């Protein structure tokens, strides 16, 4: 069935994103990986919405629009933080940001 293919794409994107967040050391690439996760969410939402009929389709599209909008705001803040780190340290390597050890 067609739905499976969309869900599979969503799952692959999600896993790629999670791997990127955990493995990448460059802050900008981590931000991009987070975007992948959010796009996986959007694909899931739209695929499921199309499956459930008209009312659910509208709800899913509204949900996806909110995810896109909020993600833009989030990344705006994220890039500002990365820029701040770069100005103070001239590097965006996350491994070097270790003044405090959790």
């Amino acid at each position, binding site marked *: 069935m067609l739905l499976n293919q969309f869900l599979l794409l969503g799952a692959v994107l999600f896993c790629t994103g999670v791997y990127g967040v955990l493995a990448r050391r460059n802050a900008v690439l981590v931000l991009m990986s987070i975007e992948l996760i959010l796009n996986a*969410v959007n694909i*899931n*939402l739209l695929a499921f*919405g199309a499956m459930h009929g008209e009312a*659910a389709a509208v709800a*899913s599209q509204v949900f996806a629009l909110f995810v896109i909008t909020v993600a833009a705001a989030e990344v705006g803040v994220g890039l500002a*933080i990365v820029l701040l780190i770069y100005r103070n340290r001239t590097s965006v390597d996350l491994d070097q940001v270790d003044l405090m050890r959790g």
Partner: protein
Amino acid sequence: MDVLSGPVAGVFRAPDVDYHAFAPELVLVAVLVAVLVVDLVLEGRGRRLVGGLAGIGLLAAMVPVLTLAVDGANRSMVGGAYVVDDFALVFKGLFLIAGYVTMLLSSDYLADDDYYEGEYYFLLLSSVLGMMVMASSRDLISIFVALELLSIPAYMLAGWRKRDLKGNEATLKYYLLGVFATGVMLYGMSLIFGITGETVLTEIGSKLQGPGASLPLVSLGIVFVIVGFAFKISAVPFHSWAPDTYEGAPTPITAFLSVASKAGGFVALMQLVFIGFLGRDDVWQPMFWVLAALTMTVGNLIALRQTNIVRMLAYSSVAQAGYMLLPFAVAGDLAKGPGAAMGPMTTYLLIYAAMNLGAFALVLAVARKTRSGEIASYGGLFEYAPGLTVLMSIFVFALAGIPPLGGWYGKLVVFKTLLDANTPWAIVLGVIAAVNSVIALYYYASVAREMWMRPVPDGDTTPVRVPAGLTAALSLCAVATVVIGVYPQVVARFGDLAVFSLLP
């Protein structure tokens, strides 16, 4: 065929808006726009004015909360997606008061630094607004939007000291883990939406009671959503950001994050679990059991070896989140229904807010003189600041749960819930919690020992000057902590109120 046939046919009718129900949020929106404009017009000359305006705004938003509480009717709007009931009002009150206390803590802290103030208050108000919306959200979309509205300003506030490397690190760790957690939560939400085809929690709840609820996909969705919020409430193993962010952020913001932001996460979890996921307690109950046991134990054990007071309080607040998770872990086994777990959690959250805000207010007051966060710098505090010493003793012993100070009652209701459940797992969890309370007493008492018994480290015994705002915040928290301890009925009443009226 007419383009406008189908679901959008006909004239657009605006939905009925119950302005009274939205009044607290509307007041807050008006105030935060005013703060932004006043700051823009006065260009930094009206620093005090902006802070005062924001504080008055928070108190003004309290008025409609009270009138709604007196009115007492449950108001459900937008097809059940936004509900104003007693539960929502109790938490809106908590968020406004916590925001106001943070404001009191911030005013002198900011004035000492060379940073802009207008944006600070604007961001703080935005975050409080997000929490207010969260308390009423009964829909996946509005929960998500409220979560972002409360988190994004908090990311920026955590990094307020732009030129401080620790501040940078605090905001980076908070942001990356927070956003990652949001992504995981959203993926879980998309799965739950996919199975049920609904976003309103009550609808999801009824679908998850019926056939199809036991699909593995639903379980996966529930696990992801809970993991997402476990970051927000800093439950172990998702707590790693908390100590670093708490240490690097400005201390008033640390107080705000450890109380209000954590309460926001708990509010969302209660709504999701007790309305949406009620039928699947086989998934969330064991998960909360593990989270609660780990959170208490790891939080307390690491707190034992901290030498910095803010980090100690950070781990202590991680451990406190563990106690608050206890009722979740046994909710499905309660004879009176899962809803009976909500009262104890709310009660604990309210008490925790008073004592933890107080402890951070005191850290701020002492740091004005010692300029240090080391626990050793509290040595001999009694010699030059007896009043502060007594207050700090009240707060740490309240956190440890010693009667007659507030904390004991929170612990009592939580333990009572475990005993009510009366299953072997609940009893085991109760034993773990009891052992943890003893461990916690050690590090709380060591702060008291430092203050009362040790000598002053550098021999400097000039008295600490505490500004008016800080004094007000300290007395507010101290009075609340002591009064709750002596007359626990005050918060018990709120705890009873804060149960959803629509529970089956």
